[in-house]
């Protein structure tokens, strides 16, 4: 393959693999900005993927082309409800956020597999969906030479939605009163409380937004990449989203950039065998690249990444 052909192949598939990560990473940004560490994103993505696939399988007779989108909404709602478990335990019951997140991960995969076995007569995975997200060319833009085939031909609507959500998240977090409150609660909850902001309410909202977005991320992953749901469907995507959030320095646009980069690494590790130079690199190096880079980012080799100050601590009124 020529260099240009490689580019035309790799860039779209990088965006394709990045889309679910963008949703989940932005979700992580919301919750951590409010001071709640959400390790449970993986579990919520699993639930999202499960809900997306099951909803798709059972409603495509009625909804037709619209099915995958409706499934996204269903996954968002269920994801937000599921994340309430984290919110209640970590915010109201003052439980350790990381431990609760781990429990959420265990619970997510267990509930999903339990339900799959219940719904599909003891089988470990669902059937394949017949109604996937369609690919399409963006009118006019796809005719631009070079940029057209790179970004605007044969793309998924979900990829555009992901990028739109990232920009929207940036606007909400940095340009609205809500966003200012969100950040204040995550940096210094006591000061925010003194100024009359309801810390508990803000954190509940943030965790539920993160749950909804992670649910969407899971449903997008299942409905674009795998096409069914089983025990290994999500397999670490949630943790990679957390990695993207950190690498993106808790900033929505940064998280999107990091997710795109990780998408590139995933695309290369899957398709690298057919590309010159890349095929000489053992695929394992490309597979572990996102994780290694995250560690380097945290160690400060790629600019210092600082978490929101109060992230990880329950807020107890009157406690200094």
């Amino acid at each position, binding site marked *: 393959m020529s260099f240009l052909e490689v580019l035309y192949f790799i860039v779209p598939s990088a965006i394709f693999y990045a889309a679910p990560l963008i949703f989940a990473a932005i979700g992580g940004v919301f919750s951590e900005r409010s001071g709640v560490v959400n390790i449970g994103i993986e579990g919520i993505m699993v639930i999202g993927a499960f809900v997306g696939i099951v909803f798709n399988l059972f409603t495509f007779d009625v909804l037709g082309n619209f099915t995958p989108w409706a499934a996204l909404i269903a996954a968002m709602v269920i994801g937000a409800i599921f994340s309430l478990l984290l919110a209640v335990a970590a915010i109201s019951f003052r439980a350790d956020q990381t431990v609760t997140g781990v429990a959420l991960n265990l*619970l997510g995969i267990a509930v999903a597999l339990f339900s799959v076995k219940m719904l599909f007569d003891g089988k470990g995975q669902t059937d394949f969906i017949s109604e996937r997200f369609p690919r399409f060319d963006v009118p006019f833009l796809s005719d631009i030479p070079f940029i057209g085939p790179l970004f605007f031909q044969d793309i998924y609507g979900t990829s555009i939605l992901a990028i739109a959500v990232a920009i929207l998240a940036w606007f909400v977090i940095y340009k609205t009163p809500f966003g200012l409150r969100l950040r204040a609660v995550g940096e210094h909850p006591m000061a925010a409380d003194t100024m009359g902001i309801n810390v508990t309410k803000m954190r509940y909202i943030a965790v539920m937004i993160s749950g909804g977005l992670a649910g969407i991320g899971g449903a997008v992953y299942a409905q674009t990449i795998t096409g069914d749901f089983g025990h290994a469907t999500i397999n670490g995507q949630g943790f990679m989203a957390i990695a993207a959030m950190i690498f993106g320095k808790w900033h929505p646009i940064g998280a999107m950039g990091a997710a795109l980069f990780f998408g590139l690494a995933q695309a290369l590790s899957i398709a690298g065998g057919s590309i010159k130079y890349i095929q000489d690199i053992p695929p394992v190096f490309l597979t572990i690249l996102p994780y290694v880079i995250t560690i380097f980012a945290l160690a400060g080799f790629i600019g210092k990444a600082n978490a929101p100050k109060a992230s990880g601590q329950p807020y107890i009124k009157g406690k200094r």
Partner: protein
Amino acid sequence: MSNRAINILVPIISVILGLIVGAIVMVVSGYDPVNGYIALWNGIFGDVYTIGETIRQITPYILAGLAVAFAFRTGLFNIGVEGQLIMGWTAAAYVGYAFEGLPKIIHLPFALLAAAAAGAFWAFIAGFLKARFSVHEVISTIMLNYIALHISNALIKFWSGTDRTEKILESASLRSPWLESLTDYSRLHWGIIVALMMVFVMWFLLERTTRGFELKAVGFNKNAAEYAGMNVNKNIILAMTISGIFAGLGGAMEALGTFGYVSIKGGFTGIGFDGIAVALLGANTPLGVLFGASLFGSLKFGALNMPNAADIPTEIVSIIIALIIFFVASGYVIRIALEKFKKTKEGK
């Protein structure tokens, strides 16, 4: 009620709540919880074979639990037990089959040491990153888990060309024909002795040595420990490394005892994550870990009997375990409830 009684009551209440909610889930999903729990019980204690297998299942849980608990006691959250365990498993399997002609008295300890060293090294990385670059250990160990999984898979492929290594040699095996014949040919092996020894080692280290005191002190209050002249960074690295030794040995149990080889994995074993549950339930004490591991190990193995005997998916037990973690983590509320209960009683 004394504080101590409450500390013991919280995990017990959590387990009971977990089992009750589990029963509710079964009822809602249209299964019979009584049949389910009977099947679970028989899956654990049904006959000598299941008892042998249950003990086998408990063995790595003890070590994973010790690893998490030890880190917790020193103020660190080691989510990386899973990765350290995989590295230990891989190292033990390699040493187990690659070094021919060694007598058992050398080969077996050598394989165990290799597993401990591999786990320790993997945890050391996270400890070093925390001490030197203040990288939070939760994130670094999560990342290291995935790196371990993929590296282990690549190594297995590289060594064997297939998706699993050769069987380990007899001289490195923890298997025991005597234990097997005793338990109707279950896979029970000597690893349980290793695990019990490590329970003692952790207790001794934390409660009877100066080093253990220092590690705990750093866990309680970093600044106070530093003010008292302890080297906090050194203790962080050491604590992580020791935690990794327990985790690596947990991997050795699978390599040298249960399976006798290591195969390419599509995902995590789950033992490391369940170790968090074990440690939490056991309040991070060695003896508590022993009880926690016995409970979760039994539940996990007993669950395998549920699809056949009661037609209920095994995942119900994973749901129950996750719920128990929730309840233990939310112990604050249970504590409040207990104290209210106490007060109303005193009021009367």
